[in-house]
C-alpha cells in the first residue's frame, strides 16, 4: 500500500534514525556504536559522514575519545522546541488536527488488554 518500496529509506530518514538513536541513549556514542545499533548494511563511513554532517549543523556535540569521537545531541534547540510544543498543546487545540500522533492515552482496562495482547 505504501508509495515507497519496503526497505528503502525516505530522504533524510537515516539522519533522523541517527538523531533518534543519540536521543534515545543516555550516554555519548561512537560511530561504531551507532553503526552496530542501526545495523543492516550500513557502512561505517556512511555513519561517520552522517555524524560529521550533524556536527557541522550544530545538532550534535562531540569530543575526542580514544582514537575517534563520541557524539551526543545538542539540547538547546530541543529545549526550546519542547517549550513551544508544550505551550501549543496546553492551549485548546484542534484535537483532530494533532490526532496524527503515534500513541494515545489509555485507561487501565485498555492497558491490561494491551499487555495481554503483547504476551507471546
Amino acid at each position, binding site marked *: *500500500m505504501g508509495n515507497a518500496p519496503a526497505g528503502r529509506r*525516505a530522504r533524510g530518514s537515516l539522519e533522523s534514525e541517527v*538523531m533518534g538513536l543519540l536521543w534515545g541513549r543516555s550516554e555519548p556514542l561512537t560511530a561504531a556504536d551507532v553503526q552496530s545499533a542501526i545495523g543492516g548494511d550500513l557502512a561505517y563511513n556512511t555513519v561517520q559522514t552522517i555524524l560529521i554532517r550533524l556536527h557541522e549543523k550544530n545538532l550534535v556535540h562531540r569530543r575526542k575519545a580514544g582514537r575517534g569521537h563520541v557524539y551526543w545531541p545538542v539540547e538547546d534547540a530541543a529545549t526550546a522546541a519542547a517549550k513551544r510544543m508544550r505551550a501549543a498543546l496546553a492551549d485548546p487545540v484542534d484535537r*483532530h488536527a494533532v490526532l496524527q500522533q503515534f500513541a494515545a492515552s489509555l485507561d487501565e482496562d485498555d492497558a491490561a488488554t494491551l499487555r495481554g495482547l503483547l504476551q507471546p
Partner: protein
Amino acid sequence: MNVAIYLPLLLALPLTLTAARLAARGTPGLIARGLTGSAFVAAVSSTWSLVLLALTLLDDLPPLSALDDHPTLELPEPVPGPVALLAALLLAWGAVRLVRDIHLRITTHRRLRAAGTPQDGLVVADWSAPLAVAVPGRPGHLLVTSGILRLLDTDERRVLFAHEHAHLAHRHHRLVALTGAAAAVNPLLIPVRTTVAYLVERWADEDAAAVVGDRGLTAKAVARAALATVGPGPKAALGMHGGAVVNRVRALIAPSPAPRRGRLLGPTLLAAGCLSATAVATAEFVALARAWL
C-alpha cells in the same frame, strides 16, 4: 419541493451508523478515502438543501414581494415558514462551526510548525511526554519528544518514523481536515470524522509494518508507546481514546488485510443518492422561482 430537499439532510445518518463497522475490515486506506469522499458529498448536499430551504424565506421580503408578477396567482407555500427559518439558523450555526474548525486547525498546525526548524525532516523536543506528531507542510516534518525516543528501541523507532512518514506521504491531514469540515457543517457526520481519524492511524500502521517488514514489531511499538501514557506523568492531553489503540494492535497482530472494494458500495450509493436528491431539489427550486417571478 418536499422529499428531495429533505433527503440529503437524512442521508448522513446511514453513513454515520455504518462507518465504524465499515472500518473493521479491508485496507484502511481504501475505506478512509471512500468514507471521506461520501462524507464530503453528504455535507455539501445537506448544506445546499439548507440553503434552498432558507432561500424560500426571501419571498416574504418586501423588495422581492414587490417583484411578484402574479399577485393574484396563489402559489402553494413551498416550505413552511418555521422550517425555512430553522434551516437558516442551522446554516448560520454550521458556518460558525466551520470557521472555528478551520481557524483552530490552521492555528494548531502553525504553532506545531513553529516549535522548531526541521533538520532532515525532524524536530526533537526535549520533553519526557511520549509524543510524536506528523506536522504537515511543504515538505512536512516530524515533531517527536525525547521521551518517545528514549522509550523505544532502535527497531521500534524505525516503526515510529515510518508511521509518521506515512501520514505525511499520504497527506492524511487532508482527509482529516475534510471530514472535520464535513462534521462541522453537519454534526451528524461527527462519528465519520472519528472513524476516519482512526483509519488514518491504521493506514500509517500498515505502511510502517510494510516498511519495517514486521507486523509483530509494529504492534509492539504502538502498544509500548501507548502503555507509556498510563499512570502519572504528563498525560497526552490529546489523542485517541485507548480503545482505538487496542484495535490497532489487534489488527497488526492479525494478518495484513485484503482490499475489499465491495465495502465501498454503501458509501458510494449514499453519495449518489445525495447527489440525485440535490439535483432534483435544485430543479424543483428553480422551477418554483421561475413560476413565482
